[in-house]
């Protein structure tokens, strides 16, 4: 028996297309797992399969060793926060939070106790009598989280909970949710398309592409060893430089294998008068601490992250060097990682 959520060859077909295809996955108890991918990659469908809002076409889902894929949604003992928050517009904040406890006929005194505890945890004490329409987006979001927390269910699913908030609030809520998950020891499955959210919050990232798992791993593992070109492109801002070996070999004193794609992260490149790669600067983007220098190498380009206080060479032509062991090699056809 394995604790947490286990998916085995889970698939879901809509019409004639696989929304989720052959996913096998272990979400450990008490961890925060992020399902990450571009829109249409099947991450939300996967979450809904775990929730029970969809039934899998094939494969199994078990929670704490118990098969649940044929169980109705209410019996799975998990909570969920929706992207739209799904607050009941006609109920007060208090009733929204208490809805599940009322449905399950938890004793009134217990309800009041849990409500006051959760309300103070989420900073909602003064808003309990309001209707959802009288709240700001961030407050609505906290109500939605409070509704999940008050259930005291061990597993919490979150479907892009921060996508409707502005950037500043999102950064705050990111930390709040992560703290909450760790304090309460929740098993959290968190869907997002935002790789920054994924990298900052996750214990484990499940990177999805076209309904399949592209790579599973801790954020730093995926960042430092992307398994595919897709993973290399998806994680990191700015994304990893990916250029064909042919271009690099033609414009530098390098010898990368033919038919491969070379990946080097912008921070692993340095402007170096003795470097092996030649190019010329086409654009400089100032970020405060850093500067992103876009260099043209033949028909392709490389982005270099340099400290903003270092000087740029006067003339456009430059030479680049890369840090040892920082090169990722991928097969150009399959997109799979080749080296190391």
């Amino acid at each position, binding site marked *: 028996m394995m604790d947490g959520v286990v998916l085995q060859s889970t698939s879901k077909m809509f019409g004639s297309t696989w929304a989720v295809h052959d996913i096998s996955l272990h979400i450990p108890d008490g961890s925060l797992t992020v399902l990450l991918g571009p829109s249409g990659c099947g991450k939300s469908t996967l979450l809904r399969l775990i*929730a*029970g*809002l969809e039934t899998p076409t094939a494969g199994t889902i078990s929670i704490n060793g118990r098969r649940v894929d044929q169980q109705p*949604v*209410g*019996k799975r003992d*998990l*909570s*969920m926060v*929706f*992207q*739209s928050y*799904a607050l*009941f*517009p*006609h*109920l007060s904040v208090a009733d929204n939070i208490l*809805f*599940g406890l009322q*449905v*399950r006929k938890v004793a009134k005194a217990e309800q009041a106790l849990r409500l006051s505890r959760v309300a103070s945890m989420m900073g909602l004490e003064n808003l309990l009598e309001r*209707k959802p*329409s009288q709240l700001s987006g961030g407050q609505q979001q906290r109500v939605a989280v409070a*509704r999940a927390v008050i*259930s005291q269910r061990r597993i919490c699913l979150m479907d892009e909970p921060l996508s409707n908030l502005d950037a500043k609030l999102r950064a705050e809520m990111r930390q709040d949710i992560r703290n909450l998950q760790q304090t309460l020891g929740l098993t959290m499955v968190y869907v997002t398309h935002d790789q920054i959210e994924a990298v900052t919050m996750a214990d484990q990232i499940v990177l999805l592409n076209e309904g399949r798992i592209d790579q599973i791993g801790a954020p730093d593992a995926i960042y430092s060893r992307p398994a595919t070109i897709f993973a290399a492109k998806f994680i990191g801002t700015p994304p990893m430089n990916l250029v064909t070996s042919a271009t690099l070999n033609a414009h530098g004193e390098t010898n990368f294998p033919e038919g491969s794609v070379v990946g080097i992260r912008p921070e692993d490149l340095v402007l170096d008068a003795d470097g092996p790669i030649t190019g010329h600067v086409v654009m400089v983007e100032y970020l405060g601490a850093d500067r992103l220098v876009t260099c043209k190498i033949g028909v392709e380009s490389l982005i270099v992250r340099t400290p903003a206080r270092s000087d740029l060479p006067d003339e456009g032509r430059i030479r680049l060097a890369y840090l040892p062991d920082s090169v990722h090699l991928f097969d150009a056809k399959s997109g799979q990682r080749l080296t190391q």
Partner: protein
Amino acid sequence: MRRTTIYAWLMLLPAMVLLMAFTHYPAIRTIIASLHSTARGHRASVFVGLANYERLLSDDVFKQVLWNNLIYGALTVPVSIAIAISMALLVNYKLRGRGFVRMAYFTPTVLPLIAVANIWLFFYTPGFGLIDQIRGMFGLAQQNWIGQPDTVLYAMMVVTVWKEAGFFMIFYLAALQSISPSLYEAAAIEGASRWTVFRRITFPLLMPTTLFVSVNAAINSFRLIDHIFVMTGGGPNNASSLLLYYIYQVAFREWDTAYGATLTVVLLAILLLLAVGQFFFFDRKVHYK
């Protein structure tokens, strides 16, 4: 500034002329007429004060039609709403032949009530009417549904409910489809039963529609009398007569126009009360957005 004011009045003019000519002016004329006697032969109409209203208080037929109308409204409004909601919930599910069922439910709305009343006349016919034929199969006795005072009003209500429920269903269907599915999903995650979901979420969220529909149904219960004309003529013994039908009889059969105007004022007052009630009472409780 002046120009825009004139412009605004000009824009309002067509609607205002129509409203005043065909709604406000007749209403005021009616009130004035109710304070006068009916002109007959050589006797011209004279001001009689509240005499017509005094007559109203001692008019047993008026009391009966008002009572009929209250029962009629009190039953047809909630029953047609309940049926409309049930039908809307049913055809909102993904069932096979949903389009056909929706159309079938809506058909009574499309058919003219006069024509429909004739069909119902056949249904109710004692002996060989549809209802009595079915009753006959179970060995039940013949019933003259619209010929006896204690059943006729209810028989009329059935026709009204049948006619109106499908129309109201359309409003409920539209309202149901505007409820976000994620609300139902959130409730499902909490393990709420179907009935709980309906009671705590669907029904409250349908309240604005229920208000709109109930006001319309209440107004219709005073307004829709085509089937009374065709099926019973208000009989037997005024048992199926409603206020508007009585007004018609008094004003255009007996040509007692002053008393007809008095009855009309009562009808206007009732409709006004309904509108005011909606505005001040329900509106606040229902709209939460």
